[in-house]
Structure formats: C-alpha cells, structure tokens
C-alpha cells in the first residue's frame, strides 16, 4: 500500500510529495532561516534573556548612531540622484527621436554589470584630493592647491554609487514606457492637449509606480551597500552600517561585543529592507492597471529638433565618464610601474600582470572565486529548481512556508547574511566552518537562493500542468515526465539562474569580506585588501583580470540565452 502511494503525484496525506517538500523546507531553514533567526536572537537577548535596554544603548552609541545617519544620507542622496538620471535617460531612449537608441539602451545598462567597488577604486585613483590624476592635472593647470573634486566625501560616495545603481530605475521605467498603451496618450492628443500637458497629466502618472518601484530598489541596495563607502569613506572615518559592522568585527577579531553590535545594526537593515520591499509591493500592485499591452503600436516620439545632437553628445559623455573612463583607468594603473607615475609609455609594464598570475595569494583568490561561484551557482540552481517545482507544481499543504522562506533572502543584505552565517556555522550547532571556503559557500547559497527560485518559478509557470499530465497519461512515470518534459522545457530558466548567480558571485565582496580567512580570499576580497594595503597598482591589475572575466561571462550568457530563446523550445 505504502509503495503505491509513493508513486502518486497528487497525494494529499502521504507519499513522495511530502518528502520532497520536507527536504526543501529543511534546506531553506538551515541555509536561510536559521542565520536570520540567529541575528535577531543575538540582537535581542543577552545570556538567553530578552534585553531591549541593551539594544537601545547600542543604538545610542555615537558611532552606531552616526553609521545609521550616514547610511540614511547616502541612501537618500543616491535614490534621489539615481531616480532623476534613470527617468531622464529612459524617457530619452523610449520617447524621443534620439539617434542610436538601441545602442544607448544597452550602454546605459552596462554599469550594472561592473562591480561598483572596482569603480570606486578607479575614482579614488582619479579624484583623491592630493594624488588623484584629474585633481593633480587640475592643480597643475590652474596653479592651485585646491582639488577640483574630493572623492573622499559624502558627495563623492553618493555620485559613485549612483553611477552603478541608477539602472534599477532606468530598466523599470523604460519597460513601463514601452509597455504603456500609446492610445492613452494619443486620445489625449486627438482631444487637442499639448504634448507637455500630456506628459505631466498622463504619461508620468502612468509610469509613477515603476519610478517608485525602481527608486525603492535603489534605496534597498544603497542602504546596505558596502563596496563604495568602504573604499571612499573609510579613508576619512566615514562609516555606514555595513562598513561599521565590518570594522567592528575586524578590529576586534570577532569578539562577542562587536558581533552583538553587528546583529543590532543588521536587525535595523533587515527591518528597513523589509519595509522597502513591502512598500514596493504596494506600489506595484496599485500600478497594475497602467501596464496595458499594445506593444506593437508605436508611441509618439517627442522631437528633439536642434537639441538632438547636443543631447546625444551629453549622453555619450555620461557613458564615457561612468563606464569607459573608470575601466580604462583601472587597466592603465594596472600597467604602471609605480603608483603615481604619469601615464606615459615609458612608465608602463606588463610585469604587474605577470606578478598577479604567479603570486600565490592572487592565484588562490581566483581559484577560490571560481570554485565558489561555479559551485554555489550549480547547487543553488538545482536546489532552486526543486524548491520552485514544489512551490509552482505540487499540491501539498504547507508550501506557503517555502514561498516565504524563498523570498526572504531578497530582504536580507549581504552583510547580514555573512553575520548570520558566522553565528550559525561557527560551531554553535556542532559544525564549525569558520575560516574555511565552505562558510562562504553556504553564505553564497543563502544570498543567491532567491534569484534561483525567481528564475526557475518563472520558467515553471510557463509549463502548463497539462503538459505533464499528458506525459503521465502516455505512460510516463512522475520521474520520466520530469526528465522528458519538464526539465527540457525549463532548461533556459535553469541556465539563466546559473548565470544570474555565477556572475555576481564572481565579483562578490560584501559577504566574503566578513567571512574570509588567510587562505580563503575571493577575487573581490583580494582586490579590496590590496587596495587597503596601498598596493593600488596590483589591485588594479587584478581588477583588470576580474573585469575581463566579467565581460567575457556577460557575453557568453547573452549568447546562450538569446540562442535558447530563438530555438524550438522557446515556442
């Protein structure tokens, strides 16, 4: 009897479905929920007893209070500036007769692929108050001691972060503008309303939900952002929440007091992230009506007339400054004999790259990163597929727990995950992974599980239940129908999930920087540490390698994903 029950797919009270469900929940609980719980538990208790007074006194300490304030200031500045730029550029690309639009659209998303901490190093090289190349040039040229712009400042941090985060708004808003039914605007135009009024009264209210949703995403990422403030702020004693957590834990060698301060700060991050995601959900829900089909129709375009060329040139200047200049700077500095020399051919060498390739520390970092990102991407992809299958396809009670746990990591910033992983995997539950690669491995899985579930669920939702039922009625067992029908159909989603994890994991810094040990540096950590130690030239040489790997990876993904879409399985 029991054997027969195991074979059935739609069992209610028994059988294989429940076993798979239980296993999936167990994986998510161990990897995701326990670390988050450990943070909350340690933040609010002392010696196993609830202690709120302690939490308040930690928040009132001057440096924690300042970090909270700084995080907020940066988040507000980046969100404001990023939203402005995102809306401006998406409107230019979607609704004006700007030339070369498809190229521009691609170029505006490029900053998204580049690691922001490498960008921050480039800007440090260019605009640090005394040594920065541009500042030096400026001071020599005008014979002054005042730098053109000091990148070691709140404004500097905000500007650099904005460059890398504005695509959130850009992508959301250009998608909304493209999907918006142009007849909504046309009917206003036929009624004789001038273009400016149409924009104000019709277009903007309709894309407002997308703008707000994108802005909230920027806020979410900026609030918990480590790389840029770590490189540009630490120099002047400016800390936000993640960098303060890092400093506390590092300077104290992982003492309990510092971890406790960390957990309190992390709790604030979790709460604000949850709030932001909740707001975003509300906004997107209210904005559903605006996304009406009509994609085939051409929206009316605003004619730029005489300002067409100047605007195009401004766009290119923007892309030059945010993408090309920092990338080239990194590559040039990586080829300098000594940091600070002018960029002349006689000062250039390939020795740094040679050194990086032969140095044990960097070799180890590259191989660690490759192992971690490939391994975590593979494991997370597979686990995500199974979990999504349970969420989307199986009729079992209790799967809402999975849905909740699956999206939880979305609201948990990298710093928080690192902290939770330390608390969970440092021997407290009998397993001590501290200072091994595996602690970073479990942290990556926790951090990227949500990506995998999202991508796989989307793919599975496209596979209608009847496709599987048809296979069953043709004589295929549950596993055969999975293997022959479901897996081939969701393979593009699985491949997408793999790369969606692989690429960010390759350049990961925020989580690994709190978890690395002497032999477990990742590429990100190695670049960051070299930069901290003043080895700017070597940091840039390694960053050059990282950029090459990332660009190569992006090209490969695009090839694979577009080939998949064109194939017969896409129909």
């Amino acid at each position, binding site marked *: 009897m029991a054997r027969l029950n195991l074979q059935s797919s739609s069992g209610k009270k028994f059988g294989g479905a429940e076993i798979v469900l239980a296993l999936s929940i167990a994986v998510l609980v161990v990897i995701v929920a326990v670390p988050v719980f450990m943070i909350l538990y340690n933040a609010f208790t002392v010696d196993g007893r609830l202690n709120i007074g302690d939490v308040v006194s930690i928040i009132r300490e001057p440096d924690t209070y300042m970090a909270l304030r700084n995080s907020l200031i940066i988040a507000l500045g980046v969100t404001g500036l990023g939203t402005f730029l995102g809306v401006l550029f998406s409107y230019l690309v979607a609704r004006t007769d700007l030339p070369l639009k498809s190229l521009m659209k691609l170029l505006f998303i490029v900053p998204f692929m580049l690691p922001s901490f490498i960008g921050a190093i480039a800007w440090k090289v260019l605009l640090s108050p005394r040594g920065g190349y541009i500042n030096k040039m400026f001071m020599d040229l005008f014979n002054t001691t005042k730098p053109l712009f000091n990148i070691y400042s709140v404004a500097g941090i905000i500007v650099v972060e904005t460059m890398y985060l504005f695509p959130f708004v850009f992508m959301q808003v250009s998608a909304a503008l493209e999907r918006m039914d142009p007849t909504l605007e046309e009917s206003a135009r036929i009624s004789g309303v001038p273009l400016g009024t149409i924009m104000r009264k019709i277009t903007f209210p309709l894309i407002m939900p997308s703008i707000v949703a994108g802005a909230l995403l920027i806020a979410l990422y900026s609030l918990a952002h480590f790389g840029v403030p770590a490189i540009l702020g630490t120099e002047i004693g400016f800390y936000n929440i993640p960098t303060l957590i890092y400093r506390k834990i590092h300077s104290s060698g992982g003492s309990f007091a510092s971890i406790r301060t960390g957990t309190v700060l992390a709790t604030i991050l979790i709460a604000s992230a949850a709030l932001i995601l909740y707001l975003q959900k509300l906004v997107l829900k209210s904005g559903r009506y605006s996304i009406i089909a009509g994609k085939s129709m051409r929206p009316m375009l605003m004619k730029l007339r005489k300002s067409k060329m100047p605007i195009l040139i401004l766009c290119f200047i923007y892309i030059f400054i945010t993408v090309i200049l920092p990338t080239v700077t990194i590559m040039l500095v990586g080829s300098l004999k000594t940091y600070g020399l002018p960029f002349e051919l006689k000062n250039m060498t390939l020795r740094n790259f040679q050194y990086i390739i032969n140095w044990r520390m960097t070799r180890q970092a590259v191989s660690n990163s490759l192992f971690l990102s490939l391994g975590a991407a593979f494991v997370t992809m597979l686990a995500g597929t199974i979990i999504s299958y349970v969420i989307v396809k199986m009729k079992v009670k209790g799967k809402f727990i999975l849905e909740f746990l699956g999206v939880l990591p979305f609201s948990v910033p990298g710093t928080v995950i690192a902290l939770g992983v330390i608390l969970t995997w440092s021997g407290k539950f009998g397993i001590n992974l501290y200072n091994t690669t595996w602690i970073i491995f479990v942290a990556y899985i926790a951090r990227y599980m949500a990506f995998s579930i999202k991508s796989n669920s989307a793919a599975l939702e496209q596979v209608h239940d009847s496709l599987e039922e048809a296979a069953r009625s043709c004589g295929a067992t549950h596993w055969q129908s999975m293997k022959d029908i479901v897996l081939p*159909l969701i393979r593009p989603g699985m491949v997408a999930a793999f790369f969606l994890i692989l690429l960010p994991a390759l350049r990961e810094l925020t989580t690994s920087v709190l978890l690395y040990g002497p032999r477990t540096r990742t590429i990100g950590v190695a670049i960051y540490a070299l930069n901290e130690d003043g080895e700017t030239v070597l940091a840039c040489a390694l960053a050059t390698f990282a950029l090459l790997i990332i660009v190569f990876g992006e090209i490969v993904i695009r090839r694979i994903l577009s080939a998949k879409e064109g194939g017969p399985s896409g129909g």
Partner: protein
Amino acid sequence: MAQIVLKNIWKSYGKKDVVKDFSMTINDGECFTFLGPSGCGKTVILRMIAGFERPDRGEIYIGDRLVASGEKHYSLPPEARDIGVVFQDYAVWPHKTVFQNVAYPLHIKKVHKEELKQRTNTAVAQVGLKNYEKRYPYQLSGGQQQRVALARALVPRPSVLLLDEPLNNLDANLREEMRFEIKVLQREYGVTVLYVTHDQDVALAISDRILVFDKNGSIRQVGKPEELYDNPKDSYIYKFMGVSNFVPADIRGGKAYLKGTKEVVCEDASFADGAMTMASRPSDVLLSRQDGVLAKVMRVAYLGNNFDYRLSLGDVEVRAQMDTHEALAQRLIFEPGEECRISFGKMKWFDAEQAKEEVL
C-alpha cells in the same frame, strides 16, 4: 472489456462538494458524453478517471480493475491506467516534433524501433498530418496541434480515451470537421470514449449516449442523443439541447391560453386546469398574417437560407425561423415593428413551477 464504472464518487475542494455521490457505467466501446455547464464537476470526474485527482469516497473501475478507491486511499497512477487523454489546451510538447510527440507513448513502452516508427507514422497519417512529422508545434495551427494530441493519445491503443473539451479552442469550421474525425477514429480503434463538453452540438453529433448535468452537478438525464432531443425529461434538458422558446400558459377546459390573456395558443391541451409552460423550437413557430396569436416583430435577421425573427408575445420573447423560399413564396416577410400572428407546430409541455428557471 474496458467499461468504466464509477461507484458513489465524492470529491470536494475545501468545503465545497464538487462531485456528490456520482455513479455511472460507461459501456465498452461506447462514445459517452458528459454535457453540462462549466463548474458542474464534469471535468473533475474525468480527471479522477485519468488519475490526476483522487476521489474522497467511492470507487472507480476501468475494465475489471479497481483504479481508485477513496475509502482505501488507493489511486493507481495515471501511467498505469491504460488511458489516452486529450486536453482542451492540446498539451502538445513544444520541444518535441510531431513525430516525437506521437512516438512518445511507444517510446515509454519500449516498443521496438521499427514497430515504433511504423505505428507512429500510421497514427500521424490517420489524423491527416502526413509530411508534418518534422515540424514543431509552434509551426502548426491550433487544429493541427489538436490532431497531434489525438494521434498521441491513440497510438498506444489505450482501452479508454478521455477527451476534455478538446474542440473548445478551435474555430467553428474546424470544430465541425474534427468531431467527425474523432467519431471515425473511435470506430476504427474500438476504444471507449468519454467526452466532456458544454457544447450540445458536438455532444449530439458524436455521442452514443449523453449524460446531462445541471449546474449543481446532479445528473438530469442520461440517454441517446435523439432521446434527449425528442423526449427531454424537463425544461432544463429541453433548453440545453438547442434554442428554445418558453411560453407560460393557463390551461382552462382543455385549451391553453397565453398567461393572463384570452389568446389561445393551443386548441388541444388535455391537461388539468392550471399553469403550464409550453416549449417549442424556433423552426416550429409558424408565422402568418391571419391565423394564430397576435405578436409583434422586434428584430429581423436575414441568415441566407432563413429569416430569424425575434417576436414579442405578451411579455415573453419568441424566436421564429422561417425558410427563405417559403417566406418569399407566401409573402411572409415582416419588418420590425409590424404585427404578425403566430401558431406553434410541435410543442412540449412542462410543469410551470419547475420551468421557472428556464423562462426568462
């Protein structure tokens, strides 16, 4: 050999009982149709026979084999039931060619390569898709995809074929063509067919027997198509079988009067005095200028071979259909707003109270 027996089946979702104590026997080799409005539970029963759902209570047999029992918590998985299923949305696998789709059941059964090829090709040819073997589903029309699904369901020679609204997504012409083909294939394969639909035209065209559900999921009538059409048990069945007119009438002394008037709608109504409802089809409503009850023409539609009139008779609407040639010959063409007289040829009488729901 492959009859389907359903014994006292119960099924609920949450607190709602979708199937309540349902029992029925579908004979071997029969083409049996479940006809009913959406939400009556007919698809749920089909899915329980297929093994996609389990009955809460009751037993299902295919042939002599018990395939599901609610009481015993037993459900044979779909792949072991020797069935073929055709779905409303075709469910043709997009990543497999026509040949690969149709060959899949044989592939699963590990049929020898040569035989697999030959049987697949035969099945593909039978549904008229020869030379389409290498195409992918996205290169086929909806009708062609449904043919693939049909060939795929039949190729393993199942003892039972279950069709769940398979023609719904097709246009009217294709639907008509396909229903003949299903019938032809059913005879050829000698398979027991259960066909689920809400379309009485298809049901009348292909069924050996029809079971009509009402919207609560209760069985209203089971019978051959002509029985249901000619001898509907009640006004619900009558209405379900085609366009219907319902006229409320008062019976007085063997005559039927239009309700609340002295207009005679039937001279020969041998019922006890009281209220009754008279039903007739549009083609049985006779128009004239002199004889019958007075009615007013509301709308006229010329449909080629006939005129379709909507008339108001007292406070009910009556639809009438008149052959074009006859109308022209007898000069019986009316304009909207004109008055005319109507009488009823063939008619059925139903209990007025029970027919209330159908009379709108």
